[in-house]
């Protein structure tokens, strides 16, 4: 469609007189049958025309780390407690997650089918999302024995926490709430409403090990039970 820009025929078709007042581009119109495919509306290049795959799919980790540091510092100013701060970070993550879901689905899922079962979706998150966003699949996926609606995604070294140090008085805070927000948005986007929270379980080998607790809504549990 963009090739028609090179010629701007003088006559204007009766179809588009009102568009003549639009600012920069003149209307490529023509009445000959061979060019019936010509677009008759002014065509600005919007972001929807751009290629989804960037030329360079990687940036430095430092860029993300610095940016995230600023996010954490900015959030600290307006909140009064750790809970609020985690909620704020989770909101940033939610915003990111909604878009990450769309991108990953377009790129990774070649079959075009979306997951309808909980386990399938969690595995998609573990491998698909984690791999494309964080560079490696998540380390483990566990189902809670006591509660039917709780699952746990374990990440031994979440990259968001790599350059964050938490002071002792705020040791309850886990900035992986940002990552939890991403997961929550993905789940919500796939019609599996849930609450996701991040908890740190440091071990000797992995001092930053984090467990993402996924608590599914009762609606989802019902649906799973029905589908079984």
């Amino acid at each position, binding site marked *: 469609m963009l090739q028609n820009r090179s010629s701007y025929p003088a006559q204007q078709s009766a179809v588009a007189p009102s568009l003549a007042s639009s600012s920069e581009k003149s209307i490529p119109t023509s009445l000959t049958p061979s060019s019936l495919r010509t677009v008759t509306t002014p065509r600005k290049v919007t972001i929807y025309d751009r290629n989804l795959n960037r030329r360079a*799919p*990687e*940036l*430095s980790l430092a860029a*993300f780390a610095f*940016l995230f540091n600023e996010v954490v510092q900015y959030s600290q100013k307006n909140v009064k407690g750790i809970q609020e701060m985690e909620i704020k970070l989770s909101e940033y993550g939610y915003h990111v997650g909604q878009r*990450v879901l769309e991108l990953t689905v377009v790129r990774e899922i070649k079959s075009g089918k979306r997951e309808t079962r909980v386990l399938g979706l969690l595995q998609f998150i573990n491998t698909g999302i984690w791999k*494309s966003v964080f560079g490696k699949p998540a380390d483990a996926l566990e189902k809670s024995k006591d509660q039917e609606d709780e699952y746990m995604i374990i990440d031994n070294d979440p990259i968001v926490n790599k350059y964050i140090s938490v002071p002792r008085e705020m040791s309850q805070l886990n900035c992986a709430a940002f990552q939890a927000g991403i997961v929550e948005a993905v789940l919500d986007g796939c019609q599996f409403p849930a609450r996701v929270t991040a908890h740190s379980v440091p071990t000797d080998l992995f001092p930053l090990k984090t467990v993402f607790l996924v608590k599914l809504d009762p609606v989802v549990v019902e649906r799973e039970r029905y589908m079984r």
Partner: protein
Amino acid sequence: MARTPRQVGEEVWKTRVEKVNAELVTLTYGSVVAQLCKDFGNDYIQVNEQLDKMGYNIGIRLIEDFLARANTSRCRTFKDTAEIISKVGFKIFLNITPTVGNWSQDNKQFSLIFDENPLADFVELPDDGKAVNELWYSNILCGVLRGALEMVQTQVEAQFISDVLRGHETTEMRVTLIRILEDEMPVGDD
């Protein structure tokens, strides 16, 4: 042996930089700007200022990271500084090399012209009429430059003068040298 800034930048990018998914950074920055717009009630002038401040905080720490990785020699003139910023600095952190141009007569002002801006991928400014005229989306970069250069004794002012998101042809940032700062001894030292 890497000599030109461009070669230095490429080499550091390939060997000494840990990579992360570009979209994570893009989307995180997007959510930061969106949150700021919400917090300031769409007062885009304030959002610009806040982004500049955040960039300043980033810049004062980023310069350490840069010096540790790039290990370039001291810049002798402001022109050298401009080259290093565009070919090494931006390359290391954002994997882009904006072009340096439009030098002023006294060599104290130059422009960085970005042909691609990873922070502004997939972005469209809101359609409320104000954003397109008031918001500089990538203003954090101005703050970063200001902060980083201040830590190396160079006081500059950086601002965007055109932005593709606003409908202009290119994204261009104008950097002006204000003065070279002298090292000041802390009060009380003899």
